[in-house]
């Protein structure tokens, strides 16, 4: 057995069913050995998307997604995907081939110091020097990626190590690392303090971030909110923690969020931030969320607590464990007045748009589409105006809402939706992008076609990089620079070229029928929606 065979054995031991990637000489031993395995390979069309696809898969399965690429440019191309996963704490294993270990450091063909390059975007990285370390390293890597604050782990393996004979293969059952012991259980004293504060509070609110989904604590949080009538708002990454129409849910906060969500958060006297980083998009003025209120910050990563805002009660631990502990406490509370106030705000501060009837109104369209989607559908939003409309108008029922929140990586939706579809072939998976973000990943239409992965892609087309145009509209007084997207391909012809079905919607008239046809299509399908180039998210 050689090193490459050992890697495959490790992946099998971890229950990996699919690897997204792109070969090259330095990773060829790996791709040679994988032929003997049941693990499915998906040839992605550019390495960045291999990481995005692994991310989409991980967010559905709750287990690390795996991608494998070659050395040099293969490895450097995957960096944006790694950084995207890191920003959103998505568990992922990235395997990179490397040049012969005797040549390391000599700048030979396709050599890149990838472990050095990704240091600030990975949870951890390995450069494998000894073939016998492979089982231990893979065991550790999967453990690190999917425990504590989750994230990508990169394993760089020189070609000679992949080819070397391994003396004895034994996959370790346990991980023993003296440097890594994440805290998952919340401190009992801190938990009691939170309960005491809740009993004192008149206007409590929970702000749920992506960490709640990563720890699969939606159910626990929802039950807690329902039992005591505690209102919930979410960050962008926390969309889906509560169903959109849940009576206790008051929308997404932040500069692109709902005005009533922000007002609710600002007027609360007790704010429980859970699995959220208090980053600038959600909380533009961290000083405000500590003023005149008690801030409880729950996070599995101690470094997030106090990084942007100093909490009254820091609580380190996994959201699931902590909400389980909250559930064991009994409280005498009554927040009915507060909930009524927020219901009033929800009505009063509802965003009112005046859409141009000559085009498809993205807000109405997304709302109609998501209403028609299956209960457990996966909606993948890209980045740009389409993302903000998606966040604002997508109705999440029991499904998932995926997007690149922290990094805001354009082109995320198509490969991430592909990964989600591979993870859950029976679920409806829809990617919604703009014409800018679509063109960053449109080469993956071939991957869908080649591997028989049905795609449902919606392109909100306005011939502009809309989000930047909107910024230039407000900040530079319509002094538009490098945002015109004319020259884009004819999407109907493009769809035909890749054997996709094609639909076009020009106004809201007939939207019902077109959406029904789109959702019912069993093949891969591309739906182009023409939207007003001058439309604004705000």
């Amino acid at each position, binding site marked *: 057995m050689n090193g490459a065979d050992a890697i495959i054995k490790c992946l099998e031991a971890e229950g990996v069913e699919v690897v997204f990637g792109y070969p090259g000489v330095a990773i060829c031993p790996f791709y040679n050995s994988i032929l003997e395995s049941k693990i499915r390979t998906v040839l992605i069309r550019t390495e960045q998307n291999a990481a995005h696809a692994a991310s989409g898969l991980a967010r559905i399965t709750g287990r690390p997604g795996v991608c494998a690429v070659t050395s040099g440019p293969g490895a450097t191309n995957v960096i944006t995907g790694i950084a995207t996963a890191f920003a959103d704490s998505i568990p992922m294993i990235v395997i990179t081939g490397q040049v012969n270990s005797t040549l390391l450091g000599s700048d030979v063909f396709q050599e890149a110091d990838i472990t*050095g390059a990704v240091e600030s975007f990975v949870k951890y990285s390995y450069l494998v020097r000894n073939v016998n370390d492979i089982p231990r390293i893979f065991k550790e890597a999967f453990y690190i990626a999917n425990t504590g604050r989750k994230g990508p782990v990169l394993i760089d393996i020189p070609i000679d190590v992949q080819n070397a004979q391994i003396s004895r293969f034994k996959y370790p059952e346990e991980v023993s*690392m003296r*440097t*890594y012991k994440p805290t998952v259980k919340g401190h009992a004293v801190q938990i009691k303090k939170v309960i005491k504060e809740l009993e004192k509070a008149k206007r409590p609110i929970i702000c749920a971030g992506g960490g709640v989904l990563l720890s699969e604590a939606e159910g626990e949080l929802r039950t807690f909110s329902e039992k005591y009538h505690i209102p919930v708002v979410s960050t962008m990454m926390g969309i889906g923690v509560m169903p959109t129409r849940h009576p206790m849910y008051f929308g997404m906060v932040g500069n692109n969020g709902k005005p009533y969500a922000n007002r609710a958060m600002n007027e609360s006297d007790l704010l429980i931030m859970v699995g959220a980083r208090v980053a600038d998009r959600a909380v533009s003025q961290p000083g405000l969320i500590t003023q005149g209120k008690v801030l409880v910050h729950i996070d599995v990563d*101690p*470094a997030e607590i*106090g*990084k942007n805002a100093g909490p009254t009660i820091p609580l380190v631990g996994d959201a699931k464990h902590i909400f389980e502990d909250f559930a064991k406490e009994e409280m005498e509370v009554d927040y009915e007045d507060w909930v009524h106030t927020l219901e009033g705000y929800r009505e009063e501060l509802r965003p009112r748009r005046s859409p141009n009837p000559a085009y498809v109104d993205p807000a109405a369209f997304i709302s109609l589409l998501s209403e028609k989607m299956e209960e457990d559908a996966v909606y993948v939003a890209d980045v740009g105006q389409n993302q903000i409309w998606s966040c604002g108008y997508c109705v999440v029922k029991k499904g998932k809402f995926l997007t690149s929140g922290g990094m805001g990586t354009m082109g995320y939706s198509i490969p991430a939706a592909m990964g989600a579809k591979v993870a859950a072939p029976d679920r409806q998976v829809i990617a919604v992008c703009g014409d800018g973000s679509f063109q960053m990943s449109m080469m993956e239409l071939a991957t869908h076609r080649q591997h028989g992965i049905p795609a449902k892609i919606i392109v909100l087309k306005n011939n502009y990089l809309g989000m930047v145009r909107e910024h230039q509209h407000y900040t530079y007084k319509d002094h538009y620079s490098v945002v015109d997207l004319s020259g884009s391909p004819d999407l109907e012809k493009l769809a035909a070229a890749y054997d996709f079905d094609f639909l076009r919607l020009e106004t809201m008239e007939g939207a019902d029928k077109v959406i029904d046809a789109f959702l019912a299509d069993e093949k891969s399908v591309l739906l182009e929606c023409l939207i007003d180039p001058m439309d604004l998210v705000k």
Partner: protein
Amino acid sequence: MKKRIYSVLVENRSGVLCKVAGLFSRRCFNIDSLAVGETDDSSVSCMTIVSSGDERTIEQIEKQLNKKLDVIKVKTFSESQCITRELMLVKIKYNKNNRREIMEICEVMGADIVDMSIRYMMIQICDTPEKIKLMINMLQSISIVEVARTGTLALSKCMENDD
């Protein structure tokens, strides 16, 4: 700005120094001084890092260090809570007019002359960072040719429950 000393036990592996130093630059934390060496356990190195910043930065440095998977333990203390030492070698140019004065400075400062030629001598001093600074000031008026310093080393003061 407060001064803070971090005594960081790390895995004695290649690349770890780079990761720790990279963390400081990436997050815009200061490094006033950095000293690294193996401990009594050859698999463990000790990094002594002197940094400064406001309250939040000082706390973040400790938390971010703890997040690094090659970091075994982070101990942090203010200057008054620990004993600090630094070693400096300094080469100076002398002549017969100032030789006496230099020897007097060395005597007062507790420094040793460890090497000498007709025109140059090398002085060694091991003391607190303040004394090292003072020594440099004293010698600057003479003629410093070269200076090499270890950076600050620090251990927390001996306590009865020190395990």
